[in-house]
């Protein structure tokens, strides 16, 4: 009886090991392709491979990629995240060397389909293109900033803005080479107790 169960387990794990060995490379290739495509979406044209690195800001590690053209760094693709309505919203934020956001893209999110999930659509995400954090405030309009929130999804919009703000803070640390004390970099969760629906009239 035990022997039988043992045999079933052995055969199953052998099968799994075989499939794992076969699919390992395609999985890695798919992951890599995903990263590269995300990077090239958020930074200007570059040459060669992006240089990956990590920086610690306020006790948290942020992976980022530096891209160069003609030997000069032209942009940084920074991964940052913030708590949304349902799990974390993780973004790749591209910032050019002159501290202007080039573009943003969502790496992963589990927001409500039809509401918060709209943060992946250009209608919302495109407002961050060419965004200069020195001129415009990265907060939703309801909180006194300049970000147009998604209707009925203020929490997601806040998370998105916060993640972008965090990326700007990370960018500043990369530039100065040290970690200044920036509130946004602590990855603080926007304080919201209500439901998304309560913000129906927000616009």
């Amino acid at each position: 009886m035990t022997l039988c169960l043992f045999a079933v387990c052995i055969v199953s794990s052998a099968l799994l090991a075989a499939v794992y060995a076969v699919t390992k490379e395609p999985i890695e290739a798919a992951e890599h392709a995903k990263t590269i495509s995300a990077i090239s979406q958020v930074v200007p044209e570059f040459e060669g491979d992006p240089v990956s690195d990590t920086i610690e800001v306020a006790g948290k590690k942020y992976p980022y990629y530096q891209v160069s053209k003609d030997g000069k760094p032209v942009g940084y693709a920074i991964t940052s995240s913030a708590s949304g309505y349902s799990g974390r919203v993780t973004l790749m934020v591209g910032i050019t060397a002159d501290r202007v956001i080039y573009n943003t893209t969502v790496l992963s999110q589990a927001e409500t389909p039809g509401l918060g999930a709209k943060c992946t659509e250009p209608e919302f995400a495109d407002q961050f293109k060419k965004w200069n954090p020195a001129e415009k405030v990265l907060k939703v309009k309801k909180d006194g900033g300049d970000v147009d929130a998604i209707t009925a999804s203020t929490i997601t919009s806040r998370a998105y803005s916060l993640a972008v703000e965090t990326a700007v803070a990370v960018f500043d640390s990369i530039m100065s080479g040290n970690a200044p004390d920036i509130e946004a970099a602590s990855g603080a969760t926007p304080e919201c107790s209500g439901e998304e629906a309560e913000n129906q009239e927000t616009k």
Partner: protein
Amino acid sequence: MGKFQLITKGLIKENPTFVLLLGMCPTLATTTSAINGMSMGLATLFVLVLSNMAISATAPYIPDKVRIPAYIVIIAAFVTILQFIMQAFTPDIYKTLGLFIPLIVVNCIVLGRAEAFANKNSVVDSACDGIGIGIGFTFALTLLGLVREILGAGSAFGFKFISGDGILVFVLAPGAFMALAYLIVLFKKVTAKKGE
């Protein structure tokens, strides 16, 4: 029962979603759009056919006392294989369904078919049963996903036909229950007429 009947009974007479009411967790959770529902259905179909065949082939050698753990190990192995394959070759679908793929292991349809059919029938019959039930499940999930997508987002299979939003509640959890309930009523009505 012929092979063809084995396949068709899963579609209507023993439809896992509308008649047997099995596997409600993935049914309600993944059907936010027609594509998602269909992918989940096909993933379950894949696991169901393979696990039915494997269990039917090994059933005579597995003592009764340890059959459930043995089935779970076999099903889990196939689910993990499916997960690797999806991760490697269909990363986009994996991204949306990723969370629910491991849950196929505890989908009662898969274990239910193993226990009710595969362990006392031949490998070929079990495969047919798996295909039938799998297609029935895929059909049900696609239909439910389509209804929810049309009402909730105003699109079908990703093609939008109205501007703006639909009735958002249908994309959310309560809408899943409502849409499913009405589809079951409709299904019962249609099949009852046929039976008489």
